[in-house]
C-alpha cells in the first residue's frame, strides 16, 4: 500500500514501515528479555555465594 506523505512529498509505504517498526520492537523486546534473564541468573548466583559464605565456619 503506497501513499504520499504530504509533508515530505515522498511515497509512504505504510506496510513496510509497520514491518520495520515491529521488527525494531521485537529486537528491543529480545534485549529486555536477555537483560532480565541475566539479572535473574546474577541474583541466583549471588544468593548461592552469600549462603555459602554464611554457612562457612567462622574464624
Amino acid at each position, binding site marked *: 500500500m503506497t501513499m504520499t506523505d504530504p509533508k515530505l512529498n515522498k511515497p509512504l509505504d505504510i506496510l513496510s*514501515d509497520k514491518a*520495520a*517498526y515491529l521488527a*525494531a*520492537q521485537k*529486537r*528491543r523486546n*529480545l*534485549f529486555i528479555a536477555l537483560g532480565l534473564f541475566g*539479572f535473574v541468573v*546474577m*541474583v541466583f*548466583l*549471588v544468593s548461592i*555465594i*552469600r549462603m555459602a*559464605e554464611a554457612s562457612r565456619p567462622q574464624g
Partner: protein
Amino acid sequence: VNAIPDMTDTPPLEPLSSDSKTSTSAYSEKALRASPADYFQLLKPRVMSLVVFTGLTGLVVAPVDINPFLAFVAVLCIALGAGAAGALNMALEGETDALMRRTRGRPVASGRVTKSDALGFGGILAFLSVVMMWLAINNLAAGLLALTILYYVVFYTLILKRRTPLNIVIGGAAGAFPPVIGWAAATGQAPIEAWLLFAIIFLWTPPHSWALALYTADDYAKAGIPMMPVAKGAKSTRLQILLYSLIMVPVACVPIAFNMGGLPYMIVSGIGGIGFLAMAVRLFMSKAGDHPEGGENSLYDVKREALWARNLFAYSILYLTALFAALLLHHAFTG
C-alpha cells in the same frame, strides 16, 4: 556518576533541523525504529569505560580480597549506575544537546529515543544497579552509588550546570566517586586512601573539561551553558587550568606516600605530572579560545590557535588512565 564530558562522543553530523527540538516529545518515526544500540548509546559507553576502570582500580587497590564473581557484580553495578546517570542526563538535556554539534547526534537529541523512554530506561537501571549493589555487596557501596547518581542527575545536571561556571568543578565530584565505591565494595569502608583517589579525579576534571570547553565555547554559549570560557573568557580559563594543574599534579603524587602504587606509579605520576604541567603552561601562554570556533567535525580536529587546548584535553585522558593503570597493575601483580 560522571561529570566528565563525553569526550570521545563523535556523533554523525546531521544538519540541525527544526524538528530536532520537538522530536524529543513524541514518538517520531525514528523513535519507532529505535534499536538496542540506540539505548546502549544512552549509557555513554565511553564515559562508562573510564568509570569502570577507576571503579575497578579502587576495588583492586583495596587491601581485602573479594570473591571474583562478587567483584564482577560490583563493577557491573558501577557500570550500570554510570550508564543510568548518563541516560537520565541525556533525557533531561535532550533539547540542549540538540543545539550543540558535539552532542546533537545523541539518541534523545536526534529523536531516535523519546525523552520519556530515556527517563524510564535510566530510572530502572539506576534502581536495579543500586538494589543489586545493596543485595550482593554492602550498604556503603550501594549508598555511595545512589548518592553518585543523584548528585550527577539532580545536583549537577538540573541545578549546577546552567547556573554557575563552577558547574564542572563542583559537579566533578560525581565522576570522582567510582574508586571510592569500588573500595567500599571490597572492604565495606571508605578510608583516606580511597578519598585520595577521589581527590585526584576531582582535581583533574576542571583542567580536562575546560581544555575542551576552550575550543567548543561557541556551542556552549549557543546552548546557554555558562562554561568557564563562556562566563569568564578564555584568558581567565587558561589561568585557572594552570592553577588547578598546579594543585592536581602534587596531589596525584601523594599515593606514593601511602605505598599505593610502587615504582610504576612513582614514574607515571612524576614524569606524567611534569608533562601535564608543561602542557598547562604552554596552553596558558597560547591564545587558545580567544576566537572560539564552536567545534569542528571531531573533538580532535581544531584550528591551529586551539591546538594546545586540544593537546591538553587528549593528554589529560592519557594521564589519568596511566595513573590508574599503574595503580591497578601494581596491586594486581603484587597483591
